Structures are given as C-alpha cells and as structure tokens.
C-alpha cells in the first residue's frame, strides 16, 4: 500500500523510504517512540502531507505519487485525531453527519451512533461529553461515510489511565467486528500488541520491522526493537552455531550465530532457584507477578519475572535458569 514514501521538512527527513503493506480488513499498528515519523506517515496516507518521493495506494487506487496528489477530501479515508477534533459548534449528530454531505441520512447517523454505543446522544454538545464518549463520537464520525481505510492517531493518549484500558477494549471489540482496514499510531507497546493484527515498528523515519505481535516479541530484528517491544535482558555470551554459552548457561538459538553476541532472554523465560552464584539485588512485587533483579558473578544483571508472590529477598543467593525455548542472538560488532 505504501511504497518508498519519503517526506522531509526542509533539511530534516521525517520519512525515509518507508514501505508498508496493509491487508484489506486488517489492523496495523505503527509503533515507535515520539518523533520517529509515525504521525507524519499517517498524515501522508490521509493526504495531509505531500510526499517528496514514493507512492501511496488506498484500496488499489494511487492517491499519492510522483505527479499525483489526491486531496484529502477526495480520498474517502477516515481519520480520528489525537484530540478528536470534534466541531465544538455542532451537536454530536451533526458532527457525525458532517462527512455524509448535504441531505445527510439520519438513519445512517443513528446507525453509527448505535454502533459506538451512543444512541440518544445525538443532540448533546461535544463539550458536555466525557473523554471516552468524545472519542467514540470521533470514531462514529470517521466511520459514517464508510471509508476505505480508517486512520487513528494515538487514539488513547488523551484518556486518563483508568479509562484507557476500558476504552481500548471497547474499540478493540468494535474494530474486530467491523472488518475495516485500519492503521493506527501509538507509542504504547501494549496498545500495539492488543489491537494490531500486525505491528510495524518505526524508528528515525523508517519501518525497522513489520510482523505479527508474536513474531515481533519472539524474534525482534535488533536489540533496540527487542527492548522497545518489551522487557529484555540482553546477556553477553559466546555463540557457536545454534548454541550460545552465557552466564545463565547454554541457550538454544533459532538462528545460527558465531562469536561474541548478545542473547535475548525475556524476564519471564528465566526462573530462580535457591542457592547459587547470583545475588538478589531488588524485588519488585506487581501483584500478578514478581520481578527480581539478580546480579551474576560476572556482574551481569538480569531481570527475572515469576508468577508467584516473592519467594526471595534482597541479598538472597540464587541460581538463574533459562526455561524458554529457542531465542535470538545478535552478533556484537568488533
């Protein structure tokens, strides 16, 4: 869908030759730290930014290309803005009807409002709604004209933490039932993994890896991605083929590696046993699990997560064992 898209502001390249494919009906999360270009990417698909190079197709139609720029209002792409951008002077119903043009179909408005669970809110003014309700109005407004694709810019970042999880589940349920091609931007790994069929990780204006959440978590393409999509211990070891020798023992690798390398060990793939060379430095109890920070004899510090109440205390001597399957290793340069 997106081919080698590039956008620059003056001398600053914001998007560098980005490729992104989205399956019809699929949901793709653009995940990346702030300033990585993910919002620019979204705005380019919307037509709000002009491409300097590359091309964008929506539903098989070229909308941005070398000599072509379809105006945003002609793309039939729906967008929900970070702050929802509801028209403050229009009622909820008229906000939703806005994209339907003149002679707006009242039945369609009612239908979409019902879809987002806001039947009967049509006459309200957006300012008098809660954050979650405003977000649903924005979603209803974007969906009303039956867009070819739906774009969501940081859809939950304006909600407070308590509400966020609840709304996220609601939107998840809604999007799963709708079968509309969706791209959303987030900096939150949980959001990306929960909502996205696929996740595209962006950094410095490039997509550095795209794949299913599971693949991304288990086989990140670089140490940076490994740490960005979850908690990661990157333990230095020596690899010979598909086996690496590390301070926590021999680890099976899914892909061969040779020489000095960093081995990815997720905290939940490690466990502790009493009596060993490691020393517990810190105990963090989260309720559903407990995370220990353990210092090994060679001064490597690893985080270990166990789904139990704390069994060890700071200063206890422990042994760290790997209980996961195969993992990945990254060759250390030099």
């Amino acid at each position, binding site marked *: 869908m997106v081919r080698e898209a590039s956008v620059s502001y003056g001398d600053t390249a914001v998007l560098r030759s980005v490729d992104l494919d989205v399956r019809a009906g699929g949901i793709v999360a653009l995940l990346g730290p702030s300033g990585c270009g993910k919002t620019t990417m979204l705005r380019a698909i919307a037509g709000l930014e002009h491409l300097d190079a590359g091309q964008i197709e929506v539903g098989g139609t070229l909308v941005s290309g070398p000599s072509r720029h379809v105006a945003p209002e002609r793309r039939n792409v729906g967008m929900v803005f970070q*702050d929802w*951008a509801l028209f403050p*002077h229009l009622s909820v119903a008229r906000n939703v009807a806005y994209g339907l043009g003149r002679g707006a179909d009242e039945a369609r408005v009612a239908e979409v409002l019902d879809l987002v669970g806001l039947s009967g809110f049509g006459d309200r003014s957006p300012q008098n709604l809660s954050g979650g309700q405003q977000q649903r109005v924005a979603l209803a407004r974007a969906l009303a004209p039956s867009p070819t694709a739906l774009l969501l810019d940081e859809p939950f970042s304006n909600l407070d933490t308590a509400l966020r999880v609840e709304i996220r589940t609601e939107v998840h349920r809604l999007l799963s039932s709708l079968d509309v091609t969706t791209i959303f931007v987030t900096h939150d790994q949980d959001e990306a993994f929960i909502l996205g069929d696929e996740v595209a990780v962006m950094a410095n204006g490039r997509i550095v890896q795209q794949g299913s959440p599971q693949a991304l978590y288990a086989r990140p393409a670089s140490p940076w991605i490994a740490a960005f999509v979850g908690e990661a211990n990157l333990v230095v070891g020596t690899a010979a083929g598909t086996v690496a020798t590390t301070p926590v023992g021999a680890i099976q690798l899914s892909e061969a590696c040779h020489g000095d390398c960093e081995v990815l060990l997720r905290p939940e793939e490690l466990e502790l046993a009493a009596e060993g060379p490691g020393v517990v430095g810190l105990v963090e109890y989260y309720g559903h699990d407990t995370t220990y920070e353990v210092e090994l004899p060679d001064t490597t510090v690893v985080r270990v997560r166990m789904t139990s109440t704390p069994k060890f205390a700071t200063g206890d001597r422990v042994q760290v064992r790997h209980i996961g399957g195969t993992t990945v290793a990254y060759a250390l340069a030099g």
Partner: protein
Amino acid sequence: MAVLQTSTDLPAPLGRSTRAPSAPWWFLLIGLVLAAVFAAPLVYVIVRNIQDVSRLDEHFTSSATWDPLGRSLLLASSVAVTATAFGTALAWITTRSDIPLRRLWMLVAPLPLVFPSFVGATALISGFAKGGLLDRAVGPLGFELPELAGFWAALFVLTLFTYPYVYLPVAARLRFLPSSFEESARVLGRTPRQVFTSVVVPQLLAPITAGGLLVFLYTVSDFGAVQLLRYDTLTRVIYANSLADQPRVMALSLLLGIVAVLAVAAERALGRNHSESAMSNRATGLTVPLGRWRWPTFAAVAAFVGFALIGPLASLAHWTVRGAASSRARGALAIPTDGLGEAIGNTVLVSILAAVATVVLVLPIAYLVARHRSRTGMVADGLVTAGFALPGLVLGLSLVFWALSNDFLFRFYQTLPLLILGYVIHFGAQANRATQIAVASVPTRLDESARMLGAGRARRFITVDAPLMMPGLLAAGGLVLLSTMKELPATLFLRPTGFDTLSTRIWASMDNLSFAKAGLESMILLAVSAVLTWFLVLRRSDAL
C-alpha cells in the same frame, strides 16, 4: 499590545514540527493585491515626491518645514512622557494600592479613550471659554481664565485623552504579574520600595514603552486637537496648505509619514523582543498600603479623572443645556438640529460599511499569516500596518490628490466607495490583529478533520471556520466601527459633498464657535461610541 506574537509565533501542536499547509497560488495573488491596496497611499506620497524631486530641496532646507516638524516632535515626545507618567502611576494605584474606591477608579480610568482628540479639545475649550463651566466656577472669584491654546494647552489636552494607551497595557501587566516575584524579593530581604524598583518596574518596561510609542504616534498624527488649540504642528501646516500647494503638502506628508512609520516600526520591534515572562492567570492580591498618602492620592486621582472624564462631559452637557434653555426662553431652537438625524444615520452607515469591508479585506491576509504562515502574508501584514501608521490627514489628502490626477480614480472622487476605502486602509491594522487571532483560534485539526470527511474549501469555510471565528470577527469589526465613527481628517477630505457625519458636524460647529451645537453633537457621538466601546472593547479587553 504585543498581540501579534500570539498569532505568528504559535507553538507547533504537541511540539511536533507540523508544516503549515501551503496556500494555493490564487490565494497568494489575492493577498498580494490586497497588500498593494493597503500600500497605495504611502506609495503615492513617495512617488509624488520623487516626481517633484527638484523642489524637495527647497522644502527640506526651509525653516517653514523644519519648524513645524520640530513642534510635532516636541509635542509628541512631551505628551508621550506625561501620558506615560500619569498612565503608569494610575495603573499602579488602581491595581496595587489601597486607595479608597479602588475598583471604581479601575473601571473609570480607561474611559477617556472614548474621546476623539477633537471632541476632548472641544469640551475643554468650551469649558475654559467665556461662559463655559470652568469660567463660571472661578469667574466670580475674580480669576481670569487663560484662553486654551498653544503648546501647553495641546500638551494638557492630549495627555488627558491619550494616557489610557499606557494605562491599559501597564494595568493588565500589573494585574497578572505573579505575586511570587514580589514575595520572593521580600523574603530575600528587600523593602517594599526596593521591590518596586528592582522587581516591578523591570517587568513593566515593555508595556510602558509600547504604550508610550502609541501615544507618540497618536499625537504626531493628531490633527483635530492641534488645529482647535492652534498649535502649528506638521499636520496643521499640511491642512492649511492642502488646497494651495500640492507639492509642498506631499513633501510635508512624506516627513510626517516617515516619523509615524518609524514609531510603528519601533513599537512592533519592541513587542517582538520583549517576550513576556511568566504570567499568572489569576489576579494577585498584593496590596501596598499608602498610609498617610492614602487620601492625598485619592484627591489627586479624583482631580485627574475629573479633568479627563467628568470635566469634559460636564462641559459638553453644560453648553447643551444652556443652548436648550435659551431656546426655550426665546421660543425658538437655539441649537439647530436640522440634518442631525441624517448625520447620525450617515455616521452609522459609513461605520458599518467600513467595519464590514475592512474585516472582509483583511481576512485573506489573516489566513495567509495565521493559517498558512506564508511569507506573502507577512509582507501584506506589514503593509497593512504601514496603512495604519500613515496619519488620517495624509491618507485622506493623498487619496484626494490621486483621484484628482487620475482619470479612472476621478470617477470615485467624493464618493462613498473612496471614503470607505480610506477607512479600510486606515483602520485595516486594527482589524488585522483581531482577525488573525480569530483565524488562529480555529485549530488546524478541525480543518483537517473536515477535509478527511470530504468537505471542500468553501464548505469548510462556511461550516467550520466562519461559525468559530464569528466572535473574533465581530470584535475586529467593532474596533473599526468605533474608530470610523470618531475619525475626522480622512472624513473631511474624502466625504461626498454635502455628506455630513457627526464628526464633520462637530468640526463645523467649532469652526463657528457654536459651543452649544458642538456640545450636543459631541454628546450624541460619545453616547453611541461609549455604548459600543463597552460592548466591544472594554468587556473583552483581556482577549485583545
């Protein structure tokens, strides 16, 4: 007065470097055409002088040129100093001291703004004149009042009616100055007096200088008051020669224009450099007790406000009542009111036309500046400001001379369209600021949102921008409406023959020394504009 910053230095939303959407070529073209219109009178004055360059030498070596310029600069600087002193003192007293009836003074202090200088001068001259209010009050005591004329009279009158230009920004700054500055200085061991000079005054420098420059500009451009008070500044000399010697008038106009443009440029440059430091958004409760100076201060403030507001009003009312009384005694109207209704109608008509036309014409420029951050827009913005800098007298004269020398323009000589055009150019800058704020107040996201929903340019403007900008546009139009009602010299030169507004009637009445008639007409003008000022300016002064 540092209003422009808010629209041009808008932070990118959420710190992201979003490009402002670029404007289509035809929109830039509209901006350029409008810019040319606003720059036209200034350009005409310059071109005329270049054409008559051989005689320029003669004008610029003659004391007949430099003496009036010297008087203009002397008067403008003096008024700027006195108005700044009184305005700042009054601002401090009404916001920080425990003067009795503080809230009342706060409310009343900006009101002399409603007096156009020639009405203020009218009121005071008639009050000092034989049979005037002040003459009647002190006459029986054996005092002979001096005739109100000359430098000191002009200084006195203009100070009384221009100090609000300093008072308003300084009071606003004081009201929102975080008390933590002063409190921390006190905690660090400074006395209240030291705190004032070391903490408060530096914070006020920006509004004081900006206000002072506005007063300077107002005075240097003023025509009505100096003419009535017979002090020969540049404007008065220009007026006296206006029909006799065009090249000389154009040369003097150029001089005056240069001085005014420099003053405006200085004010703008200043506004840009002084980034306001922390502002607290609630009124602070720091009050300085005046002690034994409490009642003397009260008396001084009362006297000052008396001269600036109550006195002039009373004087106008006094003459009106006297006129009415004598007409009853004689059984005939001593105040001729024929044509008064028409003049009121004309005033309202041209003011509304000017307000609407101005807002419509600055709106594209405001869009270019606030929405598109376009370079063309910035240039147009600067030229609109230049139109404001050109004194009304020079603007009116240059349009008249141009119309007289150009076959096409001659068709519009002494017609309503040319009069309205004059107002638009003169007051464009006032509407421009407020309009830019109105445009900037509509978040770009809403426009983008409407685009994503398939709305084209026209539909977006009608359904999203226009309704959201309406309050701001009304305020912008209101400012022009008020200024137009009070404008004298441009009206005098550009009006169609026989077309009277309240301003021109007051002027004519003063020419005949018909104090009673001038009093009545001034009262009507003030009543209409006071009501409008209250609704449009003072009630929203925090938004401007």
